[in-house]
């Protein structure tokens, strides 16, 4: 039988398919590249500006090589701010993760009613969505001298005699500022881990309970493996936020007393917009960006994100 029904040569058909595909591909790249190109330029241009600013003198504008970088590295305030950032992270991250995990487990094991879970969900997203400036205001009303209500509550309870200037003393100021972060972000950890706990198959939990597993071994052997990628994710987002934290500290202490709550971002702000030392600020900004890219490339491989 002759092949009358198909006058098109198979090779031609294949070519047409290929052309069809490549037309779609062309469309894709025509859409993608102009937009990406513009965004890429908008992102990169300031980096180039920063690089140029970092090798020119702030006053005069002549080329000074790496002098600005040297100035940054010789300033003891840089190391103080790095130390404050590390202390802040060391207080905030473990506390948020442990508290969030405990809460998630507690609610997961005990609260069965969907209505109550919705209430808890809404309560938990509340602090997260409050603008950090407003969070600063809220805690100003808690910690401030005179009107700050914490002192009055503690005096009423008989725990302290006179007022404590929470925001005015080095140790308490750091604790106050960190407590605000814990208040705002523990619910985030709770929400992510609680959602993670919902994905643990009920059968394996029940099987373990039938075998007489203690709550602890149930958590350690069955639930924790499901939470591990999420814990990494939390660490990633919280670390990114700790490195950029600015607003609530700016409102609460402005980096003081002295420089005891001056984290890296506040220090950078101060060089650039209080001392107006553009060269040094740009050099520091470049160093921060390089450091953060390194940190990012290290941490990003471990993340459970769907990239396809």
């Amino acid at each position, binding site marked *: 039988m002759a092949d009358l029904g198909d006058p098109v040569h198979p090779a031609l058909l294949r070519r047409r398919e290929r052309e069809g*595909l490549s037309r779609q*591909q062309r*469309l*894709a790249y025509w*859409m*993608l590249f102009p*937009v*990406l190109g513009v*965004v890429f330029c*908008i992102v990169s*241009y*300031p980096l180039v*500006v*920063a690089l140029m*600013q970092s090798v020119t003198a702030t006053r005069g504008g002549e080329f000074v090589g790496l002098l600005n970088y040297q100035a940054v590295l010789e300033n003891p305030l840089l190391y103080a701010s790095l130390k404050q950032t590390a202390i802040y992270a060391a207080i905030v991250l473990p506390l948020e993760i442990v508290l969030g995990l405990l809460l998630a487990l*507690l*609610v997961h*094991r*005990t*609260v069965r009613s969907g209505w109550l879970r919705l209430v808890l969900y809404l*309560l938990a*997203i509340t602090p*997260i*969505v*409050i*603008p*950090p*400036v*407003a969070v*600063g*205001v*809220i*805690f*100003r*009303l808690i910690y401030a001298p005179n*009107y700050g209500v914490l002192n*009055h509550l503690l005096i009423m309870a008989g725990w302290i005699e006179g007022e404590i200037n929470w925001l005015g003393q080095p140790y308490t100021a750091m604790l106050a500022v960190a407590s605000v972060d814990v208040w705002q972000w523990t*619910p985030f950890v709770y929400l*992510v881990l609680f959602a993670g706990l919902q994905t643990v198959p009920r059968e394996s939990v029940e099987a373990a309970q039938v075998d007489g597993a203690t709550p602890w071994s149930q958590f350690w052997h069955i639930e924790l493996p499901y939470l591990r990628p*999420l814990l990494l*994710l939390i660490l990633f*987002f919280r670390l*990114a936020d700790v490195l950029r934290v*600015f*607003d609530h500290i*700016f*409102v609460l202490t402005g980096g003081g007393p002295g420089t005891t709550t001056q984290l*890296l*971002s506040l220090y*950078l*702000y101060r060089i650039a917009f209080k001392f107006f030392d*553009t060269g040094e600020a*740009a050099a520091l*900004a470049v160093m921060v960006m390089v450091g*953060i890219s390194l*940190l*990012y490339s290290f941490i*990003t491989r471990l993340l459970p*994100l769907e990239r*396809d």
Partner: protein
Amino acid sequence: MRARTLLWQVVAIPVLVAFGLVYLFPLYWLVATSLKGQGELLGQIVPTLVPQAPTLEAFHTVLVEKGGWKLLRNSVLVCGATVLTTLILGLLITYPITRLPVSRRVRVGVLNWALSLRFLPPVAVVVPYFGVVRTLQLYDNPLALVFIYTLFNLPFSIWMLKSFLAEVPLELEEAALVDGATRPVSFFRVVLPLIAPGLLAAGIIIFAFAWSEFLFALILTQTPSAQTFPVGVQSFVTQFNLIWNEMAAAGLIALLVPLVLMILARRYVLAGLTFGVIREK
């Protein structure tokens, strides 16, 4: 088994209630303070825990006498424009990488690049931007803020839109194309209606994020004609003579907008914050 659950519940209830009280008290104190009159604040050495004569005086002062309205208007305009530009750019980037045959390297590259922007601290960028904005004569101009907010919300919107677009079956659009529809028509008639709820949620979340932004607004604006509301809030906190009820009222207004928006978009908030890893059912 049942006894164990009961035991857990006995432990859980007091712990949760205590936690809830500690969590809500700061918010209560903000609301209570904002409702106090000037007389009540000056009259007492120890502040009253409950406002004795609740009044909206402080809100009136903040919005009308101290010009908060203007900053609110600026905020709404800036955030609205940011939402529009971010969603359009986001769609232009995510449509090809999810629905057209781009190579895997390009797709993964775009997504990774968006993710890396999330890690960039704004304060490191603000120094060069300040220079750029001044040379473009956009200092104290809301446009500069729209520009930058778009940039900082783009990573999040790319990841979120990507997951919405990927859920629309390719066959639907192909069917429309075979029937002779052009690509734009098939996009607007077939794809857009299906992703509309997600798009709306993404828009709401972008609005709330842009609303909360403070650092760029502080540095790139100077006068009430361009300042956004968070900058106004800050001015109540750093002035020499603190007026507690006005500060509280300003803070409350600033937080009400994103709070209401996020409750509306509650199903998507967590997905947004985690770049689509966590999905609410």
